[in-house]
């Protein structure tokens, strides 16, 4: 009995700590346009890689799975970006999972409508 209690005492704070350190994500407008959240968390990279090859090589600019379209909804409503802050949509999770995010070395992380507005002149 004592052992169980000891184990419980050890486990509860760890679980609590894990829970509280989950990333807090600014999801922008959010919503579910491709698949449910859990599926997307696991598989979004496959959709993006497939779409990128279709677009670059065949010129298929289908909107649903395009990076630009993802950003359009998921960019923060505060700064129109998915990468600007620690809690931005892409950064928050990738930082938590320690996965390097290199899309945005070339791609713009800013909502296109906002970029166009800024560069309208």
């Amino acid at each position, binding site marked *: 009995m004592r052992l169980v209690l000891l184990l419980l005492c050890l486990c509860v704070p760890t679980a609590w700590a894990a829970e509280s350190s989950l990333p807090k994500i600014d999801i922008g407008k959010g919503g579910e346009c491709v698949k449910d959240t859990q599926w997307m968390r696991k598989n979004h990279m496959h959709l993006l890689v497939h779409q*990128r090859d279709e677009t*670059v*090589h*065949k*010129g298929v*600019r289908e909107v649903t799975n395009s990076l*630009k379209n993802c*950003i359009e909804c998921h960019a923060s409503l505060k700064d129109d970006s998915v990468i600007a802050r620690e809690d931005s949509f892409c950064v928050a999770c990738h930082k938590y999972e320690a996965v390097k995010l290199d899309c945005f*070395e*070339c*791609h*713009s992380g*800013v909502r*296109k409508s906002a*970029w166009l507005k800024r*560069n309208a002149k």
Partner: protein
Amino acid sequence: MSDINLQRRNFLKTAAGAAMVTVAPGMLLFDVAHGNPQSVGKVRWGMLIDTAACVPGCNDCVTACNKENGLSGGTSATDPQWIRKIEIKDISSGREVSLPMMCQHCEHPPCVDVCPTGASFKRMDGIVLVDKHLCIGCRYCMMACPYKARSFVHEPLSDQNPDVPRGKGTVESCTMCVHRIDQGGQPACAEACANKVILFGDLNDPDSEIAKKVRSVVSTQIRADLKLNPGVRYQGL
């Protein structure tokens, strides 16, 4: 000793030959390199540039390209330039011509031939592009291009046009504004030219304006002797 070796060599030769033929009917273990089958597209985007109407000193096409694709506009050796204005002079007659020079979108592009990763490729519609996801920045294509059309991105970039991703460590060149073409638009340079010097269209469609003009006026391809069949043609050179 040498007799044995000779027999051994002959045996190996025959074995290799047999293996080459007998993998499966119609399928060879080794295949001879042949032309890219992508060249049999229905559409072939091209440009016809009327050098007689091109005003010396005018830089509107270059400015439009820089703005559209997010280039700095600098002209040093390390600044990417997708299109340049060139003034040429025939020394014996003194005749001067001004023309824009960019990727000529060859039918048989040498940049594609030399690319070790398959990053440099030609689309079905004749546009020659760099897939920057595959480009390792080796710059073989820049050396192979007889038009010096390609640039290397030396500096980190920020705030790119969402339609035109560009980044450090990759080679890039004129894309004929592929993001506009795919949406039914025109390249930025053709749109910006006040004198309508750059005529853009489908060379394979006999009813298109460009195909009609190519049929009716004298036009030349630059370095036609290389037989690369560029999609960009010049009039009045």
